[in-house]
């Protein structure tokens, strides 16, 4: 699924260079549920942006589904993001004044075939909302939904193009503990039921425990990478 080799990322801030990633090598199999932990500034987000094709590494290789994507041009990366990857963010990033359903439809406006027909868009978005248990909130606008519900809408949006990789950067950062667990349950279910590869960044221990594999980042390097004995990896496909 994912294979990164000696991945490095440098940022130039003024005169000095920030080495956000200093050579990360790891691979993630299909349907694995990986949680990434580590202190703030350790390069977790940077790593995830590269995994999500939102950014390109300064050095190293990134092979996604057998395809080297580390040097693809921006428009190609956009295609990969649309078709293969789903994102969930800490701040939900839903469009205001737009219904949950339309928010979920958003990726379907940018498919390879162009804008998906309205009826089909609606259909697929409803099915994605169903997967997160929010069909009854389809017409609600974000400001009419609780934080947990908003994050579930965001997950539905990430699912609507049926990606094989789901990336979440601190998805529970803005949620209380109870809803955090609800959200993580959804991820766990998606991993085991649908075989979607999931990478979740968090700095909460109990949230990290949902992963079948826990990776620890420190200073732009992986310092520990271990299977989570507490959970059985759900090997599907």
């Amino acid at each position, binding site marked *: 699924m994912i294979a990164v080799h000696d991945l490095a990322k440098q940022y130039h801030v003024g005169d000095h260079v920030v080495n956000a990633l200093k050579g990360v090598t790891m691979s993630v199999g299909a349907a694995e549920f990986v949680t990434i932990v580590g202190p703030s500034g350790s390069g977790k987000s940077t790593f995830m942006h590269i995994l999500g094709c939102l950014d390109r590494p300064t050095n190293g290789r990134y092979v996604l589904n057998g395809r080297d994507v580390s040097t693809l041009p921006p*428009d190609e990366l*956009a*295609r990969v993001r649309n078709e293969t990857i789903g994102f969930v963010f800490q701040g939900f990033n839903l469009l205001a004044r737009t219904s949950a359903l339309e928010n979920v439809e958003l990726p379907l406006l940018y498919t390879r075939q162009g804008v998906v027909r309205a009826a089909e868009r609606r259909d697929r978005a409803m099915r994605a909302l169903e997967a997160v248990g929010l069909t009854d909130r389809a017409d609600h606008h974000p400001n009419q939904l609780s934080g947990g519900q908003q994050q579930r809408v965001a997950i539905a949006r990430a699912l609507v193009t049926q990606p094989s990789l789901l990336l979440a950067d601190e998805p529970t950062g803005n949620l209380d503990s109870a809803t955090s667990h609800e959200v993580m349950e959804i991820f766990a279910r998606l991993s085991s039921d649908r075989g979607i590869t999931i990478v979740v960044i968090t700095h909460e221990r109990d949230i990290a425990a949902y992963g079948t594999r826990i990776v620890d980042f420190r200073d732009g390097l992986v310092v520990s990478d271990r299977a989570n004995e507490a959970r059985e990896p759900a090997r599907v496909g």
Partner: protein
Amino acid sequence: MQKFLRHPVVDTAIKALSRNRLQTVLTMLGIAVGVATVLAMMAVGAGAQRSIEQQVRAAGLNQITIRAGNWRPKITDSDEAVAHQGDARESLRHPLDRRNPDVLPIAFHPEDDPMEKHDHPTARQRLGDLEAGLGSAATMTFDDAEALRQLPGVQYVAGGIHENVRVHLDPSTGSGSPRATSRGDQKRWFTRMHGTDVMMPSIKRAWTFTSGRFFTEREQDRASQVVVLGQVVADKLFGPGAAPVGREVMLWNQTFEVIGVVTSATWVVQPAPGDDQFDAVYMPYTTTQRLLNLSKLNDITVTAESSGDISRLSREITKLLRIRHGIGDHEADDFTLITQATKALTTGGLPPSVARAVASNVAELEKVTLEQLAMTMERASRTMTWLLAAVAAVSLLVGGIGIMNITLLSVTERTSEIGLRMAVGARGKDVMRQFLFEAVVISAAGGLAGIVVGVIASIGIARTLQWATVVSPLSVVLAFGIATAVGVFFGWYPARRASKLDPIVALRRD
């Protein structure tokens, strides 16, 4: 439409624009003012263009008249020509125009004393070529006219015979109004007769027929006794608003059927008693030749395809006629060329206001040819057009900067939205299209409003300033196109900026 409004790009645009409603409306207003001005500008420009064209046609700028006889010394030097324009003026004046009674209108029939009665075509009127005063000068023939028709650059040719006549209502059919019978001067009118060619209405393009028609080729071939009345003559004989077509009038004791009434097609020239065009009657020159026993023509009128071609064509005509008339190198012409430039200036084919405007611009009106006059008018309208163009350009610029401003604002406000769209698969060009579309929506909506305002303004200008305006469909399309182009042009930079955003940076913003 419903489907269009539901399209995600449109839907997003509407949501985005309603977010900054006041700014959006103000920006649209700027564009609307610009577009309205563009439209008014084109309307005024086209109107002025049309006025000038009418003016030029009415004055016959492209017209050359060749008169039989050399009644003016041949002049080659242009300064001298100006000096002699005074002569031309007197000669061209209508016989009834007695403002200068001491100067005899030498180009006219010596018998043409308006004070005298001479209603018998077989008596003094019917003199034949020699006695008719054409004498040795009676050199112009129908064949000359035919030869001139073959010259390159010639548009129309019409031979003419001109007489002063008394037109009577036919006592047998001319019941007229009771007032006409009780007052002699109304049932009889002393006027100008033009025996002319079927081509005449094509030459006098500023003519329009109040009723009826001009005579036909057939009537000309048969020398039929049909007559077209100028508006003044029709009014004087039959009373204003009457329908003279089909009625009969008497000329030289002969019965003529009235087949049409002609008047001016332009406000520039108004029919007035004493003018040569509408205080006149027209009949086939063949009819005149038959009744007055004439075989020659008084003059031939030639129009050039292009008014700029007049000088060249004049030389060609002179050359051709000299050869045809067998005139030796050192002999004088037996004809006289009159271009309408001299004529229009001396007889005043222009409204006084225009003449005054022109006169204030140039030192000596006498020196102005009509070509220059047309240029001056064109310059005036061009000044007006440029003025409006400047206003339009400024308001479109302001509107365009407004569009750029509001779009930049929108890009800034929606940075995280842009980041999100990119994260879910939007490419740079998708983002660019969205913002360009929003810019164009503003400008096109402003454009539509501007078109409405512009059309109303054009009508208003026409009503209040008495300046003809013409709103053509093309100008409406053009105005809308300009509005859209402004949207694209000024939306480009912000849209491009949005499309170049780094999705990570954009996502982080909130």
